[in-house]
């Protein structure tokens, strides 16, 4: 990773080459801001604003820089300008709250803070809240006596002062499903048993053979083919708790540039151990550098990697699983030893898996005799999600028929086969893309599994 100064220098170089690249300039400004080099950051924001003068995100950033540099009056002008707009953001309210507090008006500051939270609960700022003498979620005091009724720490039930409101948006689960509920996929299960479960159960043995424990496991494959399902079942299999972070939460981190939340998340998993910490669509977190559009991004990536390889906390008993449909758009830093150094391909369900999935989804529905193997035979390339949609469609069709004829009939093989003809398997498109990467950018054979799968078809 680049030391901060190198980053700044590299960005400046890049800007010299393309001075009109707004995202790049934004990136530089935000980096400078993060480093506390407010005067330089101010210059870059002003430059960026010349290109896009009414951009509220830029204006807000400029206001924050002013505030950081102690230029209160200027910051106030910006904040009031922003608040005069109909679409004033939570960030603008927060900035104003800070300025009001500095100006000795805590009552109005608290009001502003709460307005910010109304707009976006994720905007909670524990430090500011503490200075205002309220709890981060806007409640009356800092002791957590009034905490907005949000379920705190669902897993352990223990009250937790340091946890901030945001990391609790995600609940800790206790999955009831295990490998028995994952249809087919015997190879994958065996892989997970060998590479994950046994090391977790016999750490001593694996250490003796010089095998590392820790780091994470990356599951990749077409969407809807059970990555999340398998991750959850893995937790259930070892009776661990399960913490699942989705695209939505990751994006929030990017927008708020809140690497702190990431730390809180990992800490939460560490306290709930044994725990499977699952990042869905993890590529959103670790997009390749060239894909960066947001300044704080690097900080988040760095924080994530530091958490993952255990350099900022003890990960014993925590298993980090990541899932992605686009492993090729992940920064290669993610693949280094001690990070996501084990990568497993989750293929579309094979015939047995398809039969099992169909059976699973028809459970509890009015079904007659169904030839599951027969339907599975005719649904090659269907993802688990496609099969679910197929069953749903068949149920709906029967329902409509029952309304018309007044005679409810059970779902049969024929209905499922009819739907199978109508639904296009969704994994084809994924393989069209994946094939290109596997063929042409298959460094060190990382996508050999894709090629193997394509050839077997």
């Amino acid at each position, binding site marked *: 990773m680049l030391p901060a100064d190198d980053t700044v220098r590299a960005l400046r170089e890049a800007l010299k080459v393309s001075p009109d690249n707004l995202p790049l300039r934004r990136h530089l400004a935000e980096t400078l801001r993060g480093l506390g080099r407010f005067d330089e950051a101010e210059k870059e924001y002003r430059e960026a604003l010349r290109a896009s003068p009414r951009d*509220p995100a830029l204006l807000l950033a400029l206001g924050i820089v002013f505030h950081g540099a102690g230029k209160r009056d200027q910051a106030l002008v910006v904040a009031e300008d922003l608040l005069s707009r109909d679409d004033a953001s939570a960030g603008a309210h927060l900035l104003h709250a800070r300025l009001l507090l500095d100006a000795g008006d805590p009552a109005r500051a608290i009001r502003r803070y709460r307005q910010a939270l109304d707009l976006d609960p994720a905007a909670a700022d524990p430090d500011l809240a503490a200075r205002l003498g309220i709890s981060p979620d806007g409640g009356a005091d800092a002791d957590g006596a009034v905490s907005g009724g949000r379920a705190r720490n669902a897993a352990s039930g223990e009250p937790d002062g340091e946890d901030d409101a945001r990391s609790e948006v995600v609940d800790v689960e206790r999955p009831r499903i295990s490998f028995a509920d994952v249809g087919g996929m015997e190879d994958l299960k065996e892989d997970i048993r060998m590479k994950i479960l046994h090391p977790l159960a016999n750490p001593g043995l694996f250490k003796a053979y010089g095998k590392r424990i820790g780091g994470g496991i990356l599951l990749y494959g077409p969407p809807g083919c059970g990555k999340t399902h398998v991750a959850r079942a893995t937790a259930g299999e070892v009776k661990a708790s399960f913490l699942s972070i989705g695209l939505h939460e990751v994006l929030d981190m990017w*927008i708020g540039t809140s690497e702190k939340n990431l730390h809180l998340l990992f800490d939460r998993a560490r306290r709930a151990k044994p725990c499977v910490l699952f990042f869905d669509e993890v590529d959103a977190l670790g997009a390749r550098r060239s894909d960066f559009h947001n300044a704080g991004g690097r900080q988040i990536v760095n924080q994530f990697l530091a958490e993952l390889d255990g350099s900022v906390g003890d990960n014993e008993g925590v298993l980090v699983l990541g899932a992605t449909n*686009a492993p090729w758009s992940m920064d290669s830093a993610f693949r280094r030893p001690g990070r996501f150094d084990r990568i497993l391909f989750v293929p579309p369900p094979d015939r047995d898996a398809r039969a099992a999935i169909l059976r699973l989804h028809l459970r509890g529905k009015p079904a007659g005799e169904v030839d599951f193997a027969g339907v599975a035979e005719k649904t090659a390339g269907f993802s688990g999600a496609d099969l679910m949609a197929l069953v749903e469609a068949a149920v709906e069709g029967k329902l409509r028929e029952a309304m018309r004829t007044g005679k409810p009939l059970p779902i049969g093989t024929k209905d499922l086969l009819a739907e199978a003809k109508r639904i296009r398997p969704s994994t084809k498109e994924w393989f069209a893309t994946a094939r290109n990467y596997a*063929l*042409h950018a298959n460094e060190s054979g990382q996508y050999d599994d894709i090629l193997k799968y394509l050839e077997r078809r």
Partner: protein
Amino acid sequence: MGERFERARLLFGQGRFALAEKELLEDLADDPEDRDALALLALARSNLGRRDDALGAARAAVRAAPDWDWAHYVLASVLYDRDEYAEAEEAVGEAVRLDPEYADYRRLQAAILVESGEPAKGLAAARVGMELDPESARLRAIEGLALHHLNRPEEAAHSFREALALDPENALAHAGLGRVAVRTGDHRGAEDHYREALRANPGYEWARAGLLDALRARYPVYGLLLRFFEWMRSLPSGARTAVFIGIYVLAQVARKTSTSASGATKTMLQAFFVLYGVFALLTWAADPLFNLLLRLRREGRLLLDEDETKASNAVGALLAGAALAGVGWLLWRRDGWWMAALLLALAMPSTTAIFALRKSWVRTGAGIVVAGTLLAGLSGVAMELASGGSVGGTLLCLAAIVVFVLGTWIIFGLGLLRRR
């Protein structure tokens, strides 16, 4: 720009175009005139392959902000994506007018001009851009492409190499070097360049097609064919027409003489006709036929897409049928057999063309016509063979042959299907 737009921008940057579109539409529900949202929406849809929707959004962005250079740029790139070059040129011209200093607008301008068959103007635009931004690898690569289209391969290669010095991952420059290598007949070299291009950008269709060309050129016959295409391409268009007319005149003269010629000359001329026919067929159906050979290798199998595989199956079946019918003629000397052979062979170019069309009702319709014609022709053959000289059968088969010949001329002669 609100948080939702920020979210959309992140999603767009991560290649999650469908999700980005969703956020943007929500954004636009609040403010239908939001120019940033409209422009990004157009780009997202373009990336999703929804060209009509993309155009709608791009036009809306221009309407919302007629003085905004970026909106015109987005409109131009959407139009470029749709192969609507005249309008694209106009739109990018507007972006350039509004911000003459922005090099990237010149790059798109150059690319559009080159694609629309005006490489000289494209070269000029690229060079203006290079003055504005001397370090841009992409501009230099476009310069190379323009030079390639101007039949200046050495200079083109020089530009591509310079582009790669600036950015070793520039896929266009790698593929451009591949293209130049094909031009100069260095098919092995082309293979390496195309592989590099694909490594840098695995989804790069032009490079994949080029790599396939280079791989097929490992078979000497295809290599020769490729050289012929390149030679034809290097001629000015007037000379190209002259070559076609020349071959036609030559064939007419040969036919006249063959009727009056004696034994040996006659056989030679007949052999010439057969060879000429095979050559003409090959120029149209070579790709699927050699793809059949490529499929013997693992890489070839994986490299070909579904349509290419299907096309090679179909054309291969036609060729096999034609060969069998030819054998039938040699054995039994009945007219029906050579008619069948001719019919099946002449169906090959049209069949190739169908699989090269984009999936649409046009393709479905053309497929039905080809299949119907083939069926009609074959039933004519069957009648002929069954009755031993049915006039109706002969006529039916000949009509089918005429349809295929006309079809081939219409499709390829009018350039409806440009060979890449």
